[in-house]
């Protein structure tokens, strides 16, 4: 884990705003009226992921975890800041290096029903990037590679002439993984890859991710809302809240000693088959709208420890241990 970083992001931010229509623009120019609101999906994010590391990224819906994953994989350009791949800012890469980066960083999506083209045979789907990027040069070589990756994800290579609707959810997710594997990536951004799967299938797919890491030395950014899944697979865990990183820690330390009140609350909410007839002690309130985040620490309206300072001043991410960071005013005070 002390390897050189494969990916790091520096000061990375992403805003979303509906483009103002002409009338809004004119009114803004003449009367300085309001433009459409801005959503800050990811705010000043700094994160470094080492070779062969599994970084878990956890947060509730709307916290910006998918937006971060998409920026890292190059699907979505950042508004500010940079993504650094093996030491170079990806916006400075030459076209040949850019292609190498694009191929090396692949994405596995959440919904295996929406992410596969329903009219394309799965063999063609996996073969397409191989041919487009000239990774294989002959038809025989392409077929051999398709067979190899299908076999690797636990699907019968004979299935390659079938269409997505002929597969179950778990098998479809394997197809999505095979498609990512085909181009020999180094880094997989997995965006909630098991959330849509049945319980007994989740374990199979988690095992597949672990086997692939062992066999290929892959690095993962594993995005999930489920801490117990991330605990199983990740070396380190980053917790996001309303676009910001609020805590970063090695997995066992995070579970043993969560520092941020939000992390503590999340850990308390994991349902467990060891607990019976629990009295639920829920975190109060809801995730505030990212259109109108609260002032100060964005978690303060839901935090049971919040003090006056939290309402006024946003905490910065501080180093609180050898490998730990946390953004809270009250560290060591609660």
């Amino acid at each position: 884990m002390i390897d050189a970083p494969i990916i790091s992001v520096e000061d990375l931010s992403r805003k979303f705003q509906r483009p103002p229509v002409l009338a809004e623009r004119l009114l803004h120019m003449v009367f300085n009226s309001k433009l459409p609101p801005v959503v800050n999906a990811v705010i000043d994010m700094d994160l470094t992921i080492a070779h062969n590391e599994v970084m878990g990224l956890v947060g509730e819906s709307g916290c910006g975890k998918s937006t971060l994953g998409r920026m890292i994989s190059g699907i979505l350009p950042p508004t500010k800041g940079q993504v650094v791949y093996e030491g170079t800012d990806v916006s400075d890469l030459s076209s040949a290096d850019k292609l190498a980066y694009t191929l090396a960083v692949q994405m596995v999506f959440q919904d295996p029903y929406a992410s596969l083209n329903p009219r394309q045979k799965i063999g063609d789907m996996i073969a397409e990037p191989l041919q487009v990027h000239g990774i294989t040069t002959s038809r025989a070589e392409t077929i051999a590679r398709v067979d190899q990756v299908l076999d690797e994800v636990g699907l019968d290579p004979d299935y390659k002439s079938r269409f997505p609707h002929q597969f179950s959810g778990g098998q479809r997710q394997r197809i999505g993984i095979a498609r990512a594997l085909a181009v020999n990536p180094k880094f997989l951004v997995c965006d909630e890859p098991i959330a849509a799967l049945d319980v007994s299938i989740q374990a199979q797919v988690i095992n597949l991710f672990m086997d692939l890491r062992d066999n290929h030395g892959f690095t993962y950014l594993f995005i999930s809302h489920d801490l117990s899944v991330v605990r199983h697979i990740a070396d380190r865990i980053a917790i996001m809240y309303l676009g910001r990183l609020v805590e970063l820690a090695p997995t066992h330390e995070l579970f043993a000693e969560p520092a941020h009140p939000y992390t503590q609350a999340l850990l308390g909410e994991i349902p467990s088959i060891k607990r019976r007839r629990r009295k639920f002690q829920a975190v109060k309130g809801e995730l505030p709208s990212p259109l109108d985040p609260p002032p100060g620490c964005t978690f303060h309206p839901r935090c049971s420890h919040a003090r006056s300072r939290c309402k006024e001043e946003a905490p910065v991410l501080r180093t609180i241990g050898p490998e730990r960071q946390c953004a809270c005013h009250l560290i060591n005070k609660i």
Partner: protein
Amino acid sequence: MNDHLLTVSDLLTVFHFSEGAYAAVNRISFHLKKGEVLGLVGESGSGKSVTGQSLIGLIDPPGEVVSGKILFKGRNLAAMSDEELRLVRGKEIAMIFQDSLSALNPVLKIGEQMIEAITEHDAIALEVARDRTIKALKQVGITAPEARIDQYPHEFSGGMRQRVAIATALLNNPDIIIADEPTTALDVTIQGQILSEVQNLQKNTGTAIIWITHDLGVVSELADRVAIMYAGLIIEVGTIDDVLDQPRHPYTRGLLDSIPAENEPGVRLHQIDGSAPRLSAFPVGCPFRPRCSRKVIACKDSLPPISKGDRGHTWTCHNPIPEETQS
């Protein structure tokens, strides 16, 4: 004869398609006691939602409740006409759905929908119904219900909409609430809030709940008893402690073992190979046989009989996991 509020026996719900008729719920029997929370657990396609819908006559063609008895307070719901069931539904037995956005009418104010649910069953003044609605919304933790009652569903967040659905179910003080995956689409912190509300309400009102879910963790923390479904069958049922601590069916054991939190971090998880059969391809004999590590010859030929243990613990397996002598 006993304290059973609801007794279901031999319930068979079939879906008719052009290729044939398939049993989504295959002659299941179970009961629900007064004030009890029963977890109904299964994977997609196991028949858990169809079971819930069958109980209150919500199965539409091509589906059909073919046979079986649903005894509720001395009446057989399975033999009732649609008109008679309308009187029971929403009054004595209420339902909460997973997707509350599509369960609520988007063009009616929250209050209008909720008041209708009362006046449909009781001839009372509108003001009284309105007061009752406001009280129900307050009960589920909605702040300023007097104002929110005049808002539309889209003005509520997902968690708030689910609270509205729960409040609606509570309006007529039902004996039973059937909750079909009510927290699955919600974030964990919101799930925790809803579960805590449900727990309080259940304690205060004594309503019995059938909680349909795929999440054994939630069931463990909420329910008194649990029924595990697979391919249209209840394969194991019993108290939470009996079923989760000492499962006898290999499928239950497999589900428990595959939960990440029950495995050492970083090592391969226990997994059940294969996937659940499709409705159109339920195998002959025990439907779990193709995925089962304990299968014997008998599993191929016949559906296993129901075996009985202590405290109403039953399982359906030819080769059940032996009872552990030590706890």
